[in-house]
């Protein structure tokens, strides 16, 4: 029964969308989130393609005095992000099964993991407990390598920051009973997308020889 149909008949209880011939039981919210994520993927695709064009056209990619990127440290951040995807998906699964306490705990752990990822990125850029890339000579605007690195990882970091805020907001609403599994699923899609994109950022920016 659609919302409009329910309202027409004075029905105020829970409503369910009828299965669609093409999109099955996917809610309009889920289809909307997917459209947003696909369009967002284009922005990352554009950044990575720009990086590829600049790198393939450069006679020397890594300028003298520029540091190498810390693959080991960033592999740790990658592991952290994969772990948060796991806790996020398990959190959604718990919400779908009505286990509110477990769902809240797992979503909280996911947000904490996201925050730690941001701390790790701050360490990598600026240095918190050791020297950062900026101090080591990788300065935005001084080379195409530096600029593409900061723009791409910064744009991803922005997504992580938004994701942490999204999780915490949804978590509060979930604990108040104002949102349910359908909304937690949308949150889950967004957070997994952050990991999905990082797979390519890590591979292309950090690992490509």
């Amino acid at each position: 029964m659609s919302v409009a149909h329910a309202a027409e008949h004075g029905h105020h209880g829970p409503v369910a969308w009828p299965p669609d011939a093409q999109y099955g039981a996917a809610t309009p919210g889920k289809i909307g989130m997917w459209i947003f994520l696909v369009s967002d993927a284009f922005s990352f695709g554009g950044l990575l393609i720009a990086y590829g064009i600049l790198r393939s056209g450069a006679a020397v990619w890594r300028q003298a005095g520029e540091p190498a990127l810390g693959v080991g440290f960033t592999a740790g951040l990658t592991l952290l992000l994969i772990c948060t995807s796991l806790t996020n998906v398990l959190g959604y699964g718990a919400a779908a099964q009505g286990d509110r306490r477990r769902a809240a705990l797992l979503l909280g752990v996911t947000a904490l993991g996201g925050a730690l990822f941001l701390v790790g990125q701050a360490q990598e850029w600026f240095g918190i407990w050791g020297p950062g890339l900026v101090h080591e000579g990788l300065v935005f605007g001084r080379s195409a390598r530096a600029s593409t690195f900061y723009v791409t990882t910064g744009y991803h970091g922005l997504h992580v920051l938004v994701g942490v805020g999204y999780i915490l907001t949804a978590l509060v609403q979930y604990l108040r009973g104002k949102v349910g599994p359908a909304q937690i699923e949308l949150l889950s899609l967004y957070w997994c997308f952050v990991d999905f994109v990082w797979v390519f950022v890590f591979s292309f920016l950090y690992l490509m020889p």
Partner: protein
Amino acid sequence: MQSSHAQSTGGAPAEAARHGGREVVAVFAGLLVLTALELGVIRAPGVARAAVVAALVGLAVAKASFIALFFMHLRYETRILRFTVFGPLAAPAVYALVLMADAAWRLLR
């Protein structure tokens, strides 16, 4: 919206929940293995640069596919929804291939 939060997520989530945490944990382990392979590939001695690049692209696509299919439940969505997502996502890859072909042609000209 109160009405929408109470609605059943149905479909893919229900199917994914039926498979439970075991499948998710298996995918998680797969992602760890693929990441370890990536780190191994770049440290392997004597491998041609082109082979390393091809391996890294393949591993990245495999990892991203795992995430999209299992963590984002696309495996359990309808074929149309899968196409709605994967169709456009293939576009940047096609653009990249065209640009690589163009660069190669300029080099060989």
